[in-house]
C-alpha cells in the first residue's frame, strides 16, 4: 500500500510547553485513519500540523518531518497556501462563511481559480454538495444564507466546501462531536464513501465511531503516540495495556 503521509520524529511546542513528543507514523493512501485519546492528548494539535494550520498560532514551533508525497511540508520553499489546497480540513465546530450556500462552496473554487467557466463553477458546486450528501436538501435554496441550515447540514456544507477544491487529503477534527446521532450517522457514511477518492484523517472522541469507520487507529496520550495499528486489531487485541484500558473505559 502506498504511503501518503509519513511523519517522523515530530515534536511540537506551544512556546515552551511541548505538546507532541517524537511522533512517528505512516498514513497510507485512500484509507481512513482515526486518532483517539483523552482530551488534551494532542490529537487536534497533531492533525493541525499536517496542513500547517498551527502556523497561525503565535509561539508555535515544529521539529521533525512531515512528508507528503515525498515532500517535507516543513522544508524550505513550501507554499503553505498550495499545501492547504492539497490537504483540506473540516473543523469541530461547523464554520460556514456569512455568505449564501452556493457562495460557501464556490469560495474555495474561486480563490484557487479551479473553474474554467461559470457553468463549470456551478457543476463543481453541485458535485461537491452531492459528494457531501447535501445536494437534495439545499438545491432549491442555494442563494439563501448558510446560517439557515441545521447544525448537521452546516457541517456537511463545510465538508462540501473542503471537497470542492479537490484536495487529496481531508483532515477532520471531531466533525460529528456537536451533532445528533442521525446527523452523525450521515457524516460517518459520508466519510466511508469518501475513502474511494481521498485519504482521510479523523480525530474523534467517540470510540465506536473510530471502530465503525476507520481502517487504522492511532491512540495518543499526553502528547505521545501510544499505539498505531489496524483498527480491528486495536479494538480486539491491542499491543499496549494502556490502549486496552482506554478503549474499555477503565480510565477517563
Amino acid at each position: 500500500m502506498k504511503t501518503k503521509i509519513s511523519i517522523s520524529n515530530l515534536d511540537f511546542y506551544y512556546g515552551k510547553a511541548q505538546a507532541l513528543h517524537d511522533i512517528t507514523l505512516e498514513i497510507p493512501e485512500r484509507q481512513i485513519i482515526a486518532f483517539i485519546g483523552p482530551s488534551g492528548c494532542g490529537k487536534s494539535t497533531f492533525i493541525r500540523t499536517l496542513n500547517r494550520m498551527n502556523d497561525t498560532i503565535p509561539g508555535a514551533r515544529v521539529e521533525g518531518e512531515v512528508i507528503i508525497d515525498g515532500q517535507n511540508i516543513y522544508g524550505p520553499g513550501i507554499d503553505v497556501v498550495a499545501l492547504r489546497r492539497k490537504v483540506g480540513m473540516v473543523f469541530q465546530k461547523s464554520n460556514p462563511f456569512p455568505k449564501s450556500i452556493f457562495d460557501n462552496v464556490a469560495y474555495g473554487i474561486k480563490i484557487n481559480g479551479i473553474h474554467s467557466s461559470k457553468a463549470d463553477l456551478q457543476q463543481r458546486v453541485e458535485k461537491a454538495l452531492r459528494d457531501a450528501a447535501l445536494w437534495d436538501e439545499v438545491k432549491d435554496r442555494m442563494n439563501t444564507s448558510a446560517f439557515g441550515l441545521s447544525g448537521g447540514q452546516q457541517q456537511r456544507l463545510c465538508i462540501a466546501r473542503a471537497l470542492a477544491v479537490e484536495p487529496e487529503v481531508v483532515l477532520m477534527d471531531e466533525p460529528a462531536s456537536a451533532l445528533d446521532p442521525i446527523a452523525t450517522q450521515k457524516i460517518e457514511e459520508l466519510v466511508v464513501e469518501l475513502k474511494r477518492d481521498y485519504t482521510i484523517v479523523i480525530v474523534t472522541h467517540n470510540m465506536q465511531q473510530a471502530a465503525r469507520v476507520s481502517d487504522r487507529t492511532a491512540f495518543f496520550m499526553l502528547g505521545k503516540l501510544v499505539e498505531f495499528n489496524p483498527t480491528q486489531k486495536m479494538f480486539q487485541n491491542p499491543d499496549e495495556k494502556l490502549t486496552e484500558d482506554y478503549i474499555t473505559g477503565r480510565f477517563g
Partner: protein
Amino acid sequence: MAEAITKFGQRRRITNALMTSLTAICALFATVVLILIISYIAVRGISSLSVEFLVETPKPVGEGGGIGNAIAGSAMMTLLAAVIGLPVGIAAGVYLAEYGRNWFGNTVRFVADTLIGIPSIIIGIFVYTLVVLPMGRQSGLAGGLALAIIMLPIVARTTEEMIKLVPNSMREGALALGAPQWRVSWNIVLPAAASGIATGAMLAIARVTGETAPLLFTALNSRFYNFYYDQPMSSLTVQIFNYATGPFEVEHAMAWAATLILVGMILVINILVRFLTRKRY
C-alpha cells in the same frame, strides 16, 4: 419550610422589581433627554423653515435668506472627509486587528487613541498651518482634510474592534481552503464585520458633521454657493454659529431652523446606514 421559601421569594421579587425599574428609569432618562432636545429644536426651528430657507444664500438681516450654500458646503466637506477618512481608517483598522500584534501596531494604536482625545480645534490649527498658509486662503479642501483627520482614528479603532469580534474559526475555515491571508481578511473577515464597521463609520460621519471649531480656521465661511474645493466654503455648523451669535432675533430663529436641518441630516445618515447594513446572511 414552605413559609420560609415564600418569604425568601418575596424579598427576591421585590429586589428584582426595584432594580429593574431603576435601570428602566435610567434608560428612559437617556431617551427623554434626546427627545427633549430634538423636540425643543423642532419647536423653535420649524417656524423659520421654508423651501426658500433651504435653497437660498444668507442675506442681510430682515431680507430673509437661507442656508442652501451651508447645506451644500457641509455635504461637500463631509463627503471629502469620508472619501479620505473611511478607506484609510478601515484599512488601518484591518491592519491593526489582523496583523498589528507587534510594536508597530501598538504604536499606531496608541497614536490613534491619543488623536481621538485631541480637541478638534487643535486639528483645525494643524491643518491651518499645513494647508491654509501655503495655499494663502481658507478652502473647502482644508475643511474636508481637517474633518478627515478627526474621522481617521475613530474609524480605525472601531473597525479594529469589530474585526476582532469575527470568530477565528471563520478565518481558519478560509485558510484551510488555501486562501492567502489577505484574501481571508478581504472577503471573509471584512464582510463578516461589515455592519459593525458601517456603524463605526456612521458614528464618525455624524461626529464630523457636527464639528464647528476645526472649520472656523480651515473652511472659514462663504455667503455664496461654492462648488470649488479650493475656495472658502460655508458649513451648517459655522452658519449656525454666526446666526446664533448675531444680535437679532430673526437670526436666532434661523439658527434654530439650521440646527433642525443639521440634526435631521445626522438622523437621515443614521437611518440610511441602518437600512444598508441590515443583516442579509
